[in-house]
């Protein structure tokens, strides 16, 4: 069971990660389930979605431009790290936060490890769904004690 950290606290998982195109997402959302949908599904279903319950997740090579018109309404954007060494998600996070002004929850999912959390936070992530073997206490400590680039303005404020 992987732990979830949001805004510096360990919290209970509230969103279900829907990995592919599964049936009845609209009905499930209407029934009050909190679902993170793949970008393609989210875009296809968008007119019928309850905006408060439909989170969206991006893969590292998804074009986030399609999501931009609705950024103000999206309750959760997650970015998937298929491997912790795949750094594309850092750029996506930076763009969402700094360039496009996304202020909602931005979550790292997938191969999310303690030693990268501070970097992720500096790129704008504020929630982290840790890989199952990662100890939550160490994760919290890593978020407090992260090193920073000496260059002012390198991190998302």
């Amino acid at each position: 069971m992987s732990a979830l950290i949001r805004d510096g606290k360990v919290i209970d998982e509230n969103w279900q990660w829907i990995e592919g195109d599964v049936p009845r997402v609209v009905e499930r959302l209407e029934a009050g389930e909190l679902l993170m949908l793949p970008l393609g599904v989210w875009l296809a279903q968008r007119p019928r979605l309850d905006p408060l319950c439909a989170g969206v997740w991006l893969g590292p090579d998804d074009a986030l431009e399609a999501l931009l018109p609705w950024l103000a309404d999206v309750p959760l954007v997650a970015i998937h790290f298929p491997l912790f060494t795949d750094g594309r998600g850092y750029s996506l996070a930076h763009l969402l936060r700094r360039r496009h002004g996304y202020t909602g929850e931005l979550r790292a999912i997938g191969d999310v490890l303690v030693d990268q959390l501070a970097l992720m936070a500096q790129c704008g992530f504020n929630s982290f769904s840790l890989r199952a073997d990662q100890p939550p206490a160490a994760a919290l400590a890593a978020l407090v004690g992260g090193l920073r680039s000496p260059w002012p303005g390198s991190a998302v404020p």
Partner: protein
Amino acid sequence: MYRYKQADQRLVEDRVAQFRDQMTRFLDGRLGEDEFRPLRLQNGLYVQRHAPMLRVAIPYGTLAAYQLRKLADIARRFDRGYGHFTTRCNIQFNWVRLEEAPDILAELAAVQMHAIQTSGNCIRNITTDPFAGVAADELFDPRPYCEIVRQWSTLAPEFLFLPRKFKIAFAGGVEDDRAAVRFHDIGALARVADDGRVGFEIFVGGGLGRTPMVGRTIRDFLPREELLNYFEAILRVYNRHGRRDNKYKARIKILVKDLTLEGFTREVEDEWAWTRGGPGCISDATFREMEAFFARHDYAPAPADDPGYLAALDGERAFARWVERNVSPHREPGYAVVTLSLKKTGVPPGDATAEQMDGVAELAERFSAGEIRVSHEQNLVLPHVARRDLPALWQGVRALGLATPNIGLLTDLVCCPGGDFCSLANARSIPVAAAIQQRFDDLDYLFDLGPLELNMSGCVNACGHHHIGHIGILGVDKNNEEWYQVTLGGREGRHAALGRVIGPSFAAGQIPDVIADLLKVYVGARHEGEIFIDTVERVGLDAFKARVYGGAA
């Protein structure tokens, strides 16, 4: 020189604590090998053939005497009494113990040094001309810009997990590029616009390795305040779109090739359009602050025609030869830039013992304002020497065994550690280098041959920069035997070119004869005053091939 601020110092200290914790977790099994690997690489720690290797950063090749003493101290206490200066202006310790790496980093932090980002798929140590700030032919001093980019790229959170390593170099001269900027992922060459604005020509997609390419100009003139906005745009396009499925196709040069220069440029310019003129611009105050760190050293007036110096030139042939090859013009009258050769015959190129490092530190304090540079040709440079001190300095350098008068000559060869140390290598390079140095030990002959760059790598990763040697040697593996491929015509600088293979490869023992044949063709064909590479370019490869292969190739 740049002096650490509190934030810089705290960072290197915190980094030690962070890495110590990571090492502890690795050793007790809480951190797996795969998870630890990128972390240790980002702290310069490789697992090598015999022992772990620690690569220490020397930002843009600049060292203070007290820092060089610390490197000597580390060589003595944690290694076998020597270190290896690399073509990236760093130093490598080849015999460290894994568990001691955090202790070494702590020693380094105490003298404002570290090993951050000397390896891994991130922005590596920034390099520049070893004569930066003192060269007589410089447009402006690139070091303040190197320092800005050093700070910006250090732990830049967005760019620590790039598709592959990323190398940046600056050069401040127009005529003579001594930093090989066209062979970097990003190269920046000083430019001053017609209206007096300061900026850079930007090259992208250059590099050696298994797919060598000369960098292409992506922007003729980038105003200096946009430097980081523009670099960020390049890095972001690369981070998002560079290939990650094949490490041999993951460098930015492949992305530039796949998108075409025009396509890649469009992506970068679109990205830059978002940040151009914005808060990421570097302020004039920042430039002034950085320039102040590198402000010209306060040179006491020194005569260019000091009688003692002139007398030594006249009376001592060995001194005169050393001055001819190892002493370069300085922008300040009466001063000189002195190169100490780490290419003595029989010593692996780039290696220096702890005693030599201590000795150089002392000479730097006596004669060069306490400053030392490391060149990408793997030599050391004393940048601020009064000409009248040259005779005394020469005596000191000679006593250390660093006065070989061969800078820029055949035996000043560039060479990676090769199969003796490196686990990537296909072949050994050091014994071949030694054989070449022994064969061509006659100074009269070397001086007659004139400037000639010979570069050698033990494998296609090209740490020895063989592609840009006038003569290049590449170690290859054929059925578990070491063979050596020879290239001709590589060149750095304004007329950058990649060497071309002359034909089938050779056994190690044949290499000195092959070089001798190439040199004979040159000596026979050269015009008055024409250097080797110019003759190669003028007459083409065929004459050389015919001589080496007897018409068989």
